[in-house]
């Protein structure tokens, strides 16, 4: 198994996202601020990548650069072997604040990115994706009638509606309560297994990163740098109370709380 993975790695064309030596600066109060420093990340087709880091470590910026919403000047960013110059239909994105348009019914929100399609086909796609996220029957509701979890489901449906090969998720469950969040994590895994979409999720929830990720990218803040990319054994990481899960957790925790073991111990008991 391990060997097979390595073989794919050697062939550059099999990477759906390729980031090399990416640097990004923002100008804040006329001072350049380094947001991303020398980011190198290769993502294989069908992989689920989670990126963890403090808020403000540039992980959201990295995601937006991948999908073409934010420009970059220094480095290589490729999607499907082509340099990223802007958003494309094959790359969907889900935001933390679901960003459903309040004036559109759920079906029109989900179908928002479906352009130039015959009406029937469009409706069929919307129906299929609403069913996939468990929102059948809410076609004609407005976003304000949905709970936070349901809104996020609708946002995921919108992200998937035009069958992207990549779905980027920017802390999609960050605003949800703990129980809904666990539910949503299970569903996003199910969807990923069904659709085989490559997913990249930014999160600040370490448990979420371990549970979902095939690989976990650990980032530090100011400048945003990749500290480590952890390969995850899914058999271990899907058991939230298992020893393997706890070991991954300790490994990631040590990056963020190098000098405060006390704080860590409390969390560790879960």
């Amino acid at each position, binding site marked *: 198994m391990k060997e097979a993975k390595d073989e794919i790695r050697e062939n550059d064309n099999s990477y759906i996202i390729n980031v090399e030596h990416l640097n990004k600066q923002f100008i804040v109060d006329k001072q350049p601020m380094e947001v991303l420093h020398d980011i190198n990340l290769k993502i294989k087709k069908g992989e689920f990548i989670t990126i963890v880091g403090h808020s403000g470590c540039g992980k959201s910026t990295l995601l937006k650069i991948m999908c073409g919403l934010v420009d970059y000047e220094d480095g290589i960013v490729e999607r499907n072997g082509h340099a990223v110059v802007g958003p494309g239909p094959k790359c969907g994105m889900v935001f933390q604040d679901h960003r459903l*348009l*309040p*004036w559109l019914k759920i079906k029109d929100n989900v179908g928002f990115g479906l352009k130039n399609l015959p009406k029937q086909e469009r409706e069929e796609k919307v129906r299929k994706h609403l069913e996939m996220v468990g929102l059948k029957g809410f076609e004609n509701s407005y976003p304000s009638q949905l709970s936070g979890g349901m809104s996020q489901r609708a946002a995921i449906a919108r992200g998937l509606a035009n069958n992207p090969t990549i779905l980027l998720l920017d802390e999609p469950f960050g605003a949800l309560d703990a129980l809904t969040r666990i539910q949503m994590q299970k569903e996003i895994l199910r969807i990923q297994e069904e659709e085989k979409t490559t997913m990249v999720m930014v999160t600040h929830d370490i448990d979420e990163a371990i549970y979902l990720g095939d690989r976990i990218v650990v980032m530090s803040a100011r400048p945003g740098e990749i500290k480590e990319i952890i390969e995850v054994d899914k058999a271990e990481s899907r058991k939230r109370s298992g020893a393997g899960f706890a070991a991954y957790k300790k490994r990631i925790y040590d990056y963020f709380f190098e000098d405060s073991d006390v704080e860590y111990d409390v969390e560790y008991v879960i």
Partner: protein
Amino acid sequence: MKTDRTPKIGFGIRKIILALVIPFIIVLIWLYATMYTSIPHGILPTIPEVGQTFVEMLKSGQMKEDILISISRVLKGYLISAVLGIFFGSLIGMYQPVKELLVPIITVIRQIPMIAWIPLIVLWCGIGETSKVVIIVLVAFFQILVNTQSGIESTPKGYIEVAKLYKLSRWKTFTKVYLPHAVPQILVGLRLGLGGSWMAVVAAELIAATSGIGYRMSSARSNMQSDVVIVCMIVVGIVGVLMDKGIGVIFAALTPWRKVENENRKEE
């Protein structure tokens, strides 16, 4: 806002009674003044006199004619203002250079009271239809423009990013994101603009006109017909309220999602 259901009926009655308290006091004072003081009837007519004049003006068709003339002027000026106001308001809201070009001069012009425009407009356009329409446009256009601009400008960046993500054209982004977001605010502008138009037309007719409800008032004043003046004032008030209510109903139908949002808010 009251949220519970049961006291709603009582609340409605209370609302009506409270709204009528002050008109009732005014009528009492009016009655007292005409019955027990020596104010001449040419200055303050009795209530029955005003009522009689009202009925006469209704019957003779004069009032209908006056109102229709004034309203048709309002409609002309208002439609022009709405189209121009929404157009320029959207441009200013979406394009920074347009904003920098237009906003300073608009801010200055808006400081001039509507009445102060009338002498110049009459000099340029005479006392015919054109001058009324121009004055209405001067009032309503800016109200609609400013509100449109603020609605467009306050569109959350996140929504615009979604449009960018799905590569919507500039026009589509406008019709699907900016405009719907601005609609409630535009409606506020349209509502204020309609009220302003009505006031402007009455004022313009008072000063320079040969027809319309404002003209009727000014000619009645010169004939010392205070009853006609009062009837006209009441009619101006009623027409204004009716137009405001009417436009409110139309706008509620145009923004169905807001009804849902408001209901949710009440439930919470």
